[in-house]
């Protein structure tokens, strides 16, 4: 594998046993979305198609070919034509499909999977939420593209997986159906003449009065030529708003207990240290609790599937907090390696493993990765709902993403192929394999050989041009390592 390859940014193991289908691994790298057969590692599809969309049979062959040759500029051009055709069918506004003739995105930072057959992604620069169908053969087909007003920082689903939840950089949380119902009638902006809200009763200074006059003149002009109103032109609802940059959004279902029935909640975190607990849709406007305890931004929230009463949160503080989140009660403060002001939690993942021959007990694992660190911290959740550090896993590059494979009792870790270990800016001279896998045996996670991973690693992902300018490198660094920007800088004041 020569040259530099994009690392995997998102990774999701799709268990489809219940539907009687083989499991699939979906992942994003660079501007592409890939699907792999989870047993063989065979690449099933890549989206957007690197070659003409009409020649469908070729897609699986064409993808590996594209890594050895083909300047990326050309590939982009080709793929964007297929993009355009697809988009013509979708609900995207005509203005946006025009935009997509140029490079409309360079990476796909958010991904989730619904019902095992829909992949939901957000393409970065065009702020577009795209739903793709994932068929039996693992082929990807875009079903809809909805452009959001602001770039998203979080994307998830309601517990029934029928609705998408998005959190954006403006602090707003929207919900909209996974599959547009078709009943939605585009809202025609009421043709209402612009009228200044100010009057000479509310503004008094000379300058304000002058600008009011100006506005009046403008209003008179615009009456003949009403401006087009920009709106989210699809069925959607704004359900939660923070006056802060929203960093994380998860949706949690608490099973019924003796006193209350099954209830769903939405947990949101922001740059201003808040973790907010709201009720689930349709009552997301009712705030149930705030979890206070962080003194820097919060970037990761994890409610383990095996213990939904517990929340583990982390961010710009050099500690994790373990919560009884419905009571705003801190159960444990867990010190992280690294000093105050430098540690940033990149991700917290829960992995549960059923008892196997190698492990007598079921495992409730919590993995924590720090931004720009090649170590993976392994904790277990104890019966008293605290976590205990068990081990540290060393990887060949910075940890980017993790997914558990329950059926094999292993975890799959995406590592940074481009940057040197423990650096977010120094580049390697040649790419490393993008995936590593570990299996638990007698209490320790040890690297294992997995034919799927070997196959995926041998093919690599889309390659980068061999010559990259400093500016492009910086952009690539920023797209992968942007959490430190959330830190507040001292200085500005009135």
């Amino acid at each position, binding site marked *: 594998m020569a040259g530099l390859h994009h690392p995997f940014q998102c990774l999701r193991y799709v268990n489809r046993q219940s539907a009687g289908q083989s499991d699939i691994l979906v992942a994003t790298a660079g501007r592409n979305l890939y699907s792999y057969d989870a047993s063989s590692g065979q690449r099933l599809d890549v989206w957007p198609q690197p070659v003409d969309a009409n020649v469908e049979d070729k897609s699986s062959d064409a993808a590996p070919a594209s890594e050895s040759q083909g300047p990326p500029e050309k590939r982009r051009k080709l793929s964007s034509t297929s993009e355009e055709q697809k988009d013509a069918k979708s609900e995207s506004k005509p203005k946006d499909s025009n935009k997509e003739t140029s490079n409309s995105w360079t990476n796909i930072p958010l991904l989730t999977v619904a019902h095992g057959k829909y992949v939901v992604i957000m393409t970065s620069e065009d702020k577009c939420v795209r739903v793709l169908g994932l068929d039996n053969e693992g082929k990807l087909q875009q079903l809809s593209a909805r452009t959001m007003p602001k770039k998203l920082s979080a994307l998830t689903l309601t517990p029934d997986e029928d609705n998408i939840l998005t959190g954006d950089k403006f602090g707003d949380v929207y919900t909209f159906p996974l599959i547009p119902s078709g009943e939605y009638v585009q809202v025609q902006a009421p043709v209402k003449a612009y009228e200044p*809200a100010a009057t000479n009763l509310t503004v008094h200074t000379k300058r304000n009065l002058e600008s009011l006059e100006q506005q009046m003149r403008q209003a008179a002009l615009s009456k003949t030529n009403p401006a087009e109103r920009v709106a989210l032109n699809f069925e959607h609802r704004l359900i939660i708003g923070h006056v802060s940059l929203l960093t994380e959004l998860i949706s949690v279902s608490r099973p019924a207990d003796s006193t209350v029935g099954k209830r769903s909640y939405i947990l949101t975190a922001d740059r201003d240290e808040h973790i907010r607990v709201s009720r689930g849709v349709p009552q997301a406007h009712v705030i149930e609790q705030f979890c*206070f305890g962080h003194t820097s931004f919060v970037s990761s929230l994890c409610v383990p599937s095996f213990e939904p009463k517990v929340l583990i949160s982390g961010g710009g503080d050099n500690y994790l907090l373990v919560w009884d989140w419905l009571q705003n009660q801190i159960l444990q403060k867990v010190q992280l390696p690294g000093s105050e002001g430098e540690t940033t939690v990149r991700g917290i993942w829960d992995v549960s493993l059923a008892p196997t021959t190698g492990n007598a007990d079921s495992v409730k694992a919590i993995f924590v990765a720090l931004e720009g660190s090649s170590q993976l911290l392994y904790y277990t959740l104890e019966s008293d709902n605290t976590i205990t550090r068990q081990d540290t896993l060393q990887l060949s590059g910075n940890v980017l993403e993790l997914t558990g494979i329950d059926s094999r009792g292993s975890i799959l870790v995406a590592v940074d192929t481009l940057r040197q270990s423990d650096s977010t800016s120094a580049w390697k001279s040649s790419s490393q394999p993008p995936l590593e896998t570990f299996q638990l045996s007698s209490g320790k996670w040890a690297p294992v050989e997995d034919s799927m991973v070997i196959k995926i690693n041998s093919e690599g992902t889309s390659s980068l041009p061999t010559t990259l300018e400093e500016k492009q490198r910086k952009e690539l660094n920023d797209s992968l390592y942007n959490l430190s920007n959330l830190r507040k800088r001292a200085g*500005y004041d009135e």
Partner: protein
Amino acid sequence: MATQNPPAKRVKREEYRRSVQAQQESNDGSLIKMPQKKFFRQRAHANPFSDHRLEYPTSPAHMDWSSHYPAFVDPDTSKTNLSGGRKLTKEVEVVDIGCGFGGLMVGLAPLLPDTLMVGMEIRTSVLEYLSSRIHALRNQQQRLKKAANQSSTEPQDASTKAESTESSPAPVPANDDEIGTEKLFPGNFENITAIRSNTMKFLPNFFGHHQLSKIFICFPDPHFKARKHKARIISESLNSEYAFVLRPGGLLYTITDVEEYHHWVLRHFLHGEQPEGGAAPAASSKDLFERVSEEELALDPCVRVMKFETEESKKVTRNKGNKYVAVFRRKADPEWPA
């Protein structure tokens, strides 16, 4: 005006404010003069999205109110909050969001002498004025109290009734800087304070679930441009936060001189007219509030203070502008869906 000689003006300001500071810090019991507003004026806008350099508690349980309400500190020294500060005998219940120079706080203080109230303001100079003003008010009330005790043993009950604020506004109608200097007021302004904060971000850091009984939002920055409407202090998503800190039955008061903003307020608190036979309105924070009737408002003395005693309302009166009042009552949370 300001362009002619700004440095001189600034120097004068700073000198004045330093002297006010010094006077307050000298705790020798001498008379503290009322600060003068003209030295504390500040541009009437602040960007609610920027970080500023704000101090705020990690959580309501960390908030140390003891320095703000010395008269209400719990005598039991063993009672402390999470940051080690002394606890109060009661909780803060009323908030004026964007209190400005504090006209509402000062007007309400004698009306609700046993209720702890706080004004929150994002602009530093304005806040500095209000803090100095409250400090001076308390000082002068204490002096008056002392003098009254010396002159006669008879209690000055006549002057400590609620109506006393109405009885003689004549001598000081034009200058708020002098209010509270000549007679005793119920509560002696010990129940009000001011804090710098950006409530759009940090209101839940100060107040717990259902802690408040009243929230006032008086003459908020209208943010005329549509592009700036996200910065308005009233919106459906912010109303969820107000509902969180406001107890069921609690009231949220609004007043504005901008008619368009008034309609905006109504639109964000109340469901619009539904088309006949149409579907029920989508669930939103509007379900958590109901509008208080005009008849009820006519009996509420807080509305009068809001309409006539705040600095902004006096300015609107001077300019013969309109005032639009809307008050909403917090309803109970809806039942969980089955």
